[in-house]
């Protein structure tokens, strides 16, 4: 994967675009003492303007599409987008629902998909590490 080291803390902003909260709970589980990603400097932040990575959950409802796009644009470059869960990746069980405009990659560019309903915290951490690898590549170009 080419990860030399964590050069700095990785700040993550979580967006729910119509999730059932299953994936959101698993993201929080990754922060609990059992997994404790904060020991690596990975932490959730309250605004995309401070974020390196966007964690997107949910199948993207019609109302959330514009907001998701705006949040993506407000995230400073270089950035990576990680979709967590089957709904965000493929629309999942809500496939072809009348009120969906997703999955997420129809609205914004996606770098890493973490499928699952919901995915385990280990899978989410793996996805975020893949996003770090992408950020390191982008950082080398800047």
């Amino acid at each position, binding site marked *: 994967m080419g990860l030399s080291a964590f050069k700095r803390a990785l700040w993550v902003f979580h967006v729910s675009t119509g999730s059932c909260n299953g994936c959101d709970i698993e993201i929080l589980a990754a922060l609990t003492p059992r997994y404790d990603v904060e020991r690596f400097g990975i932490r959730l932040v309250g605004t*995309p303007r401070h974020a390196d990575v966007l964690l997107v959950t949910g199948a993207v409802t019609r109302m959330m599409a*514009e*907001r998701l796009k*705006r*949040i993506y*644009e*407000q995230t*400073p470059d270089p950035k990576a987008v990680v979709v967590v869960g089957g709904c965000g990746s493929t629309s999942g069980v809500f496939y072809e629902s009348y009120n969906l405009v997703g999955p997420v990659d129809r609205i914004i560019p996606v770098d890493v998909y973490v499928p699952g309903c919901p995915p385990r915290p280990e899978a989410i951490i793996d996805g975020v590490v893949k996003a770090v690898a992408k950020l390191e590549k982008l950082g080398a170009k*800047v």
Partner: protein
Amino acid sequence: MEETLKIFTGQGYWSPLIWAAGALGTLILAFLIWSQGRREHKRDTEQELPFLSGERVDDPRVDASHLYWGLAEALKPFLGRLKSWHSGIINDYAGWFMVILAVVLLLVLGG
């Protein structure tokens, strides 16, 4: 030469050369701070607007009147009447001035 470049004020002196050197130093410091900024920042995009849960923010300013909003709200009946008297016509204000002046003069001279 030096005497012409200094203005003695009694509280010290003012020298344009020292002032120019200070201004240059400030500019260099400002440039150094500016150069530490993120080059990837995109101007005239959503990145310049405040984050409000992804909502559109058309007017993100905080007006000066927001500071005393509570006071204005509490004194609404009084301020509302004052506002209605605020016609914006100078004749009205001059008239108010004359009336108040007459009252004050009556109070001062008559008392």
